């Protein structure tokens, strides 16, 4: 795992020493990030999250000091926008603060069915001041995950599995999701087009709801869509850095790191010697596995994935876990490497990583593992992919630059490490 950091240049050693516990950055653009077993469930014990990076987010009624701290919000570079689990008698989240409802131009309430890897979150879009460290995104759209006011429409149910509760099956296992990904809004221009038009490409994420609680797919303007809070900070708004230290091969009970706002905007957030990997319009770059081997052009870096997910047992020769959980369970740890490349083919940088036996790791009851991996059946013609989840982040600073944002490393979107 030492080689994992060395393979990617790990620490910049320059303007941004943040990692390995040497000099945690501090400043108004830095919020503490923790990897632990997650928020407390109804029985008072942590829900048992593995490889979740969490921050505390403060949400306020816009323009007021009427605020609430929400702990254990998952930091997710794979999505954009803040979603908070409600405390509504069912969802089991923390949010009790009453936020104003976001409305469309006709004065109807907006709700959203946001798509994730294998499910969706449903609930109203509301407005909040979102505070992280010394940064505030004022009056932005956030999603409140709740079915208390608007029941899930049938068309939303078709999106898969409803991630509507803290625990249970499936459980969100966090009090919210802080999407600090590559995009400014979770949907973008496609959702601003009238879904009723004959050739509308509106994917139907947003809904307009009437007073009877009935919701129908609707267009929502960009500035009313659920938005990446970082992009709407007054400063330090071109991206983020996730900084997490190395962890031992048997994992760690708790890991403390930093979520840093801005890239090259201050002395504590420079790119150092990180390599910039531009992504395509969908947030993808290329991973070659092994290096100079097969090309996987749909690859992405996603702190919200809790393992490094790639290929299949038949392709890698690494045994699946006997419980068919989707994780790998090699008899002994396997050392591997891949080559990451920008979406257009350059630049390139080698990544070394290890995959250990997931069952052995889980039995430690630790929460942070740099060597947890699993299968990824994403086999679309252009989409076979490496999903570089949280294990990838331990021991290296990972930069996520927002679309159309200017940085010293070029204009986003890109990942850098």
């Amino acid at each position: 795992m030492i080689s994992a950091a060395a393979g990617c240049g790990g620490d910049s050693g320059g303007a941004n020493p943040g990692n390995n516990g040497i000099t945690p950055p501090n400043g108004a653009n830095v919020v503490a990030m923790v990897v632990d077993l997650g928020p407390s469930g109804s029985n008072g014990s942590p829900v048992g999250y593995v490889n979740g990076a969490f921050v505390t987010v403060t949400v306020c009624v816009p323009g007021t000091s009427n605020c609430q701290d929400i702990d254990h919000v998952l930091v997710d570079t794979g999505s954009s926008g803040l979603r908070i689990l409600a405390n509504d008698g069912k969802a089991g989240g923390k949010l009790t603060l009453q936020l104003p409802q976001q409305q469309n131009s006709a004065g109807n309430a907006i709700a959203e069915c946001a798509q994730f890897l294998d499910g969706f979150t449903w609930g109203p879009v509301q407005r909040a001041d979102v505070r992280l460290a010394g940064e505030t995104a004022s009056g932005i759209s956030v999603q409140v995950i709740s079915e208390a006011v608007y029941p899930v429409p049938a068309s939303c149910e078709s999106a898969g599995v409803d991630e509507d509760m803290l625990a249970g099956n499936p459980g969100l296992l966090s009090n919210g999701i802080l999407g600090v990904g590559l995009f400014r809004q979770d949907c973008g221009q496609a959702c601003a087009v009238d879904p009723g038009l004959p050739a509308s490409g509106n994917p139907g994420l947003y809904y307009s709801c009437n007073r009877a609680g009935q919701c129908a797919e609707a267009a929502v303007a960009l500035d009313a869509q659920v938005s990446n809070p970082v992009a709407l900070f007054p400063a330090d708004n071109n991206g983020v850095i996730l900084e997490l230290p190395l962890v031992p091969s048997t994992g760690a009970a708790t890991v403390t790191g930093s979520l840093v706002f801005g890239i090259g905007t201050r002395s504590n957030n420079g790119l150092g010697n990180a390599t910039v990997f531009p992504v395509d319009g969908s947030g993808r770059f290329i991973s070659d596995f092994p290096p100079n081997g097969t090309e996987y052009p749909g690859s992405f870096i996603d702190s919200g994935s809790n393992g490094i997910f790639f290929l299949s047992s038949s392709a890698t020769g690494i045994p699946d876990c006997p419980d068919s959980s989707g994780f790998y369970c090699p008899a002994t740890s396997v050392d591997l490497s891949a080559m990451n490349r920008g979406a257009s083919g350059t630049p390139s940088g080698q990544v070394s990583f290890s995959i250990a036996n997931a069952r052995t790791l889980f039995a430690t009851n630790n929460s942070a593992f740099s060597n947890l991996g699993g299968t990824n059946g994403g086999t679309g013609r252009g989409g076979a992919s490496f999903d570089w989840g949280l294990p990838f982040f331990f021991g290296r600073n990972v930069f996520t630059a927002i679309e159309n944002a200017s940085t010293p490393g070029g204009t986003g979107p890109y990942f850098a490490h």
Partner: protein
Amino acid sequence: MRIRIFSGLERLCLLILAALLLVFPRPGLAALGGDLSSVKKDQARMKGSLQVSGGDRYSVHEMKAATGTTIREYATPDGKVFGVAWEGPWRPDLRQLLGAYFGDYQQAAKRKRTGHNGPLSSATSRLVIETSGHPRAFYGRAFVPDLVPAGVEPAEIQ
């Protein structure tokens, strides 16, 4: 064949039934496990273009939805859809695409979810399904093992 004359009441009922079918098109005319007539309905719903290709072992019906998502439906020579695949910024309507197998998918996703935040790979005797990606780039495929023609490799469904 015995010829039946409908009574007035029966005719009225049939008319009402026909009208209801016009107003409420049958949901779940999904492709997987269905016949090729469902492909046309998928195309209409997705406001997409349709391309057909393939050889004597199976045909591929590729639809590009207006959302930018591409869907491929794989059908046997006698018109039975045995596999589907999708890729694009947003997932297609999986209830429609998976039809009778949507429940299998939901069960698989629920089984997977606890402690696993990553792509879904599930194989049962009824359905093999794999999904991956992230918002703005989703991928997936599903097939019914019992319906895949002899000599067709599952890897061809993508």
